[in-house]
Every structure is written in structure tokens, then in C-alpha cells.
């Protein structure tokens, strides 16, 4: 049986439209050999989790720059749990104040990638953490 490619959903929750980071990461992950799906802008937590379910992804990467992470991320984690998708690796990238990081990790986010992170670092993290 041929090995299945790692499937990643890149999502932009919230109202913010700044998608430079999301698109650069999406493309870098695709170039690294992952199967990448990008949701497009202004997705609700419900839409993101539904897409993740339909696309049967291993990883969800959330790009948030607006400061709405404390409202949006826990809701997404809650919905994932409801759908029995606790094994999906959830990553957050963007502008996240230090004081919010422990909270986001406590609700189940595996890693938070802050400004200055190289795309190689994200690729390495996913390769190490996704169970094959």
C-alpha cells in the first residue's frame, strides 16, 4: 500500500483578510510534499471543522492576526472534540501575545508559530508530529 500524503488544512478564521502568511505557508507545505487545502477567508469555526472533517486532514493550520484567537481557537477545539477529531494536529500562526500562549496550548493547540518562523520549521514540526 502506497503511503498516504499528509493532509493539511490552512484556514483563516475571523474577519481579518491579511492572507499573505497563510498563503506562503500553504504553498511551502505543498512544495514540501503535503496535500494542502486552503479554506479562503472569513471562515467560522463550524465551517473550518466541517472542511477538516470532509477533507479528512491530519493537520489544521490556523492563521490569526487580529487578536481574536482567544475567542476562535477554543471554539474550534471544542467542535473537533465533538466530532471525534481529537487526533488532528492543530497549529496556530500569527500575532499571538505571549500571555495567551499557555491558554491556547491548554485547549489543545500543539504549537504556536510566531513572526519570524521559517516555513522549514513548520514542515519539520509536522513531519515529526503526524503519526504515519
Amino acid at each position, binding site marked *: 500500500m502506497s503511503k498516504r500524503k499528509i493532509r493539511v488544512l490552512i484556514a483563516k478564521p475571523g474577519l481579518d483578510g491579511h492572507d499573505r502568511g497563510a498563503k506562503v505557508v500553504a504553498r511551502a507545505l505543498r512544495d514540501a510534499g503535503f496535500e494542502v487545502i486552503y479554506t479562503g477567508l472569513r471562515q*467560522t469555526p463550524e465551517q473550518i471543522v466541517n472542511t477538516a472533517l470532509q477533507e479528512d486532514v491530519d493537520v489544521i493550520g490556523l492563521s490569526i492576526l487580529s*487578536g481574536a484567537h482567544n475567542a476562535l481557537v477554543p471554539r474550534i477545539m471544542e467542535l473537533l472534540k465533538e466530532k471525534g477529531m481529537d487526533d488532528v494536529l492543530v497549529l496556530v500562526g500569527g500575532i499571538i501575545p505571549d500571555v495567551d500562549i499557555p491558554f491556547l496550548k491548554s485547549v489543545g493547540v500543539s504549537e504556536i508559530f510566531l513572526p519570524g518562523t521559517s516555513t522549514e520549521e513548520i514542515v519539520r514540526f509536522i513531519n515529526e508530529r503526524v503519526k504515519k
Partner: protein
Amino acid sequence: MIDNIEKEKERWEKETLLPYLSTAPERQNEFTTVSGRKIARLYTPLDLGNFDYMKELGFPGEYPFTRGIHPTLYRGKLWTMRQFSGFGTPEDTNKRYKYLLSQGQTGLSVAFDLPTLMGIDGDHPLAKGEIGKCGVAVYTLRDMEILFDGIPLDKISTSMTINAPAAVLWAMYIAVAEKQGVPKKVLRGTIQNDILKEYIAQKEYVFPPNPSMKLVIDTFEYGSKEVPLWNTISISGYHIREAGATAVQELAFTLRDGIEYVEWAIKRGLDVDEFAPRLSFFFNSHNDFFEEIAKFRAARRMWAKIMRDRFKAKNPRSWWLRFHTQTSGVSLMAQQPYNNIVRVAIQALAAVLGGTQSLHTNSMDETYALPSEQAVTIALRTQQILAYESGVANTVDPLGGSYFVESLTNSIEEEAWEYIRKIDEMGGMVKAIELGYPQREIQESSYWYQKAVERKEKIIVGVNEFVMEEKERIPILYIDESVAEKQLQRLREVKKERNTSRVKETLSNLKKAVSDNENLMPYILDCVKAYCTLGEIMDTLREMWGTYQEPVQF
């Protein structure tokens, strides 16, 4: 003379340069700008060819305005120091405005929160977590009244960064002025109102391109008659650059957007010389010092040509490219944030040497959050040091005549014309946007840059070189959820206190005006005065026009 220089340059290369290089080679094979433009070792008159001073530069205050739109530039009046600011509740931001004005800032610039930018109220489900976070929350006229409480609108000029719902927020500002007893005729300021760059770069669009453009032209028409000192648009390259464009792409897409607005306004039947003097521009000042200065100079020269030759504008003021500059947000780094003060100073210097009319200097902490009072004070002081200590404001266009800067100005202009021609061939900017063309070009550039940084072809101090372990972070401004509670409370109060039948009436008049294809500004003004909410007004338009979904590509 040129022949002689050519001969002498060959001799110099053989006798002086080559022997030197054999013992002291250059650090890199190739030197490039932040946009990937190759830079030569040396620039001489040879790079300028048949340079015609009067044709290429002329005198400041005269066509083609390469050296500046005013004859004395900053010797007459310094640039406006305008810090973009807004956070939390209107009370919070009002306090910050009064502080900035007390510290010598000379104009206001409003940053709205994301619900406001997207034309929804704070009680909309999508507003959850976003209220007051990226800017100040303004959902009804009541919020706008508080925002400018105690600030005399006849004495100050105000810039508002608002796009899809620009007409509504502008109407609120006009209504507040009226309540202060200030007539529309004397109001000075700017609404960004540049919807095209939203489709291209920042993505805060609501309606599809065609009705969006109609609304923009409504503001042009209304403004030129009723609010004659107001800049009804700030055609913006800033966000295009932040999304990853090169300097040339920023310049070309911005000017082509400008052309699109002028074409639509003329199609409406407006006289070009009536509205063109109220068009203003907004550019980014990025890290590459000389490339940025050349970009600003090329922009002025190109716009003068566009307005005079392409649109046959007669009034020299229609030829002016007046612009605001903001230093580059994406160039700021979270690592070793104090370094950002230096980056901002260099970028601000480029903007001043490029002849900007107004300037926002970013604060060092903006990779983390909206700026703290301390950080924004340093940013403002940076401008004041440039203005009062450095001597750069003493003469007009000090870099004019530099072989390097003139050569850069020429090649940036040439490459930008190439893009403009391409978009003309596609049938204009709305068409190009629908084809995803500028979006794709920008994505390519931003991906190239990211890879260049990761390969260390581009060095970022403190990020991919000169890295250090950092223990302490700088203090940042934190917006908590109490802001949302306050704003929602006020929204409920306004809805309870207002005259509901007047709300229904003004909204239904607006709807009818859309059907009848009238200029919507007077109707929107009636709506805001009746305390219709931003969301209610925008929903009325959404119902009529639908919303836009961009094709997803990466």
C-alpha cells in the same frame, strides 16, 4: 563629454577596479534590493543617457513634478505628522487622540476595528472576539460623537482608514461636525475609500467590484459639490506592498487603480478637473532606502503624465500626486523589537527625501499588538527629529541629480508602465482583478522573498542572523473583553432610544435610491442621523447588491 566618460570608465575598470578586485573581491556576486532589483557597482552619467533636465525633472511645483509638487517643499510647511491610531472603545481612542495632539501631532488618523471595517455591528456572530481589537469600534453615530468629543473638527484634519463602508463612516463624521456646528464646506480630511486594493491585497471587500465602484464614485460626486476640501479617496499602494508586492508592483498597481477610478468618474459625467484635485495617494516606505525614494519620485512624474496626457486634465492641481506614507509594517520584527525603531527611522527618512505630504511612523511593538503610548511617542519623536534636527527638510529634493537615484527612478518608471500597459490590455483593473492577475503577481513576489530570507540571501538582523536569546518582552497594549461588553451595551441603548419609525423610513429610502440608481450619499447621511447602525445600512446594500467571494488560489 559622455564619450569621454565612457572611455575613462573603461580605463578605470582596467587600471583601478580589476587590480583591486583581484585582491579584494566583493562580498556577493550580486547586490539586489528588497524587491530583487539588481544594483550596479557604480552609477555615472552614462546610466542616464540623454538625460534632459527640464523634461525629466523640471522645477518643483511644475510639471512633471519629479522634484516635488510644491516649489518650497518642507521649507514652507513640514509634512503632516499623522499617527494612525484607534483601539478599544471610542472613549479609549478619544483619550489617545487628545494625548497625540498634545504631543505635537498635526493630524488625526482613525483605525477602525474589524467589524467596522467589514460593515457589521458588534452583535453580529462574526464579530465575536474582534470588537475593539484592531482599531476602534464604531457601530453608530453615537460612537462617532464620543470618538471626536472635545476635538474641534474645523481645526483638525482627519484621515479615516475605511473602505467597503467608507460612505457610511464619512457620513457619520459629517453628521458629528454638523452637531458641533461645523459646516461640511470647511471639513478637511481623507477617507481611504480605495476598494480596488481590497480585492487585490487587503481583502476587506464586501460587495462585488461593480457596485463597490458605483459607491466610490458617489462619494467623489458628493464630495466635489458638498465637501470640497475633503480627499474622497486615498489610492493605496501600502497594502499591496504589505501583501508582498515589489516596489514596482506597488507603484504600478496603485497608479492603475487610480486610472480606473478616473475612468469611472468620467463615465459618470464628472469633469476631470473637478474631482482629480481631491484624489490622494498612500504609499509604503520599505527598507530599501534608495529604491523607495526613486519610487516616490517616479510616482509623481507618472501621475502627472497620466493626468495631463491620458485624461487631458487642464488644471495643474489635477496633475499633482499628493501622498501619505506609512513605514512598512511587515519589515518590523518580533525579535529584538527595539531594532524596529531604527528600521522606522530609515524608512521615514526615505519618505521625507521622497517628498511625502504626510507620514505615519510605525511603533516598535506593532508585531505584537497595537502600539502602547510609550512606543507611539518614540515613533512620533522620530519624525520630529527628522524634521527639526537632521537638516533634511532644508532643501527641496536633495537627491535629485544623483546618478543612482535618477537611474533608479527611470527604470522603476519604465517597469511600472509595462505593468500598466498589460492591465490596459486586459481591459482595466476590475477585469484584471477578476482574472486574479495582480493577486497572483503579488503572491509570487511574497513567496520569492520568504524563500530568499530562508536561504539567507536576504539578511534580517535578529531573525536569520545576529540572533540572540531574549528573556524579556517589551510591554504591550492588551485589549480585553470588557471593551466588547461596553460596546454591546451602548449598541443596545442606542437601539432602544432611537426613533424606530425614522430608522425604517431612512433605510427604505436608501433601498429605493439604490433601485433608482441615485447618488446614495444623501440617503446614507439621513440613515446615520437617524442612528441606523452601520450593520443595518450595509445590510440594506448587501440585500441589493450581494456580496463578493474571491476565487481561492495559492
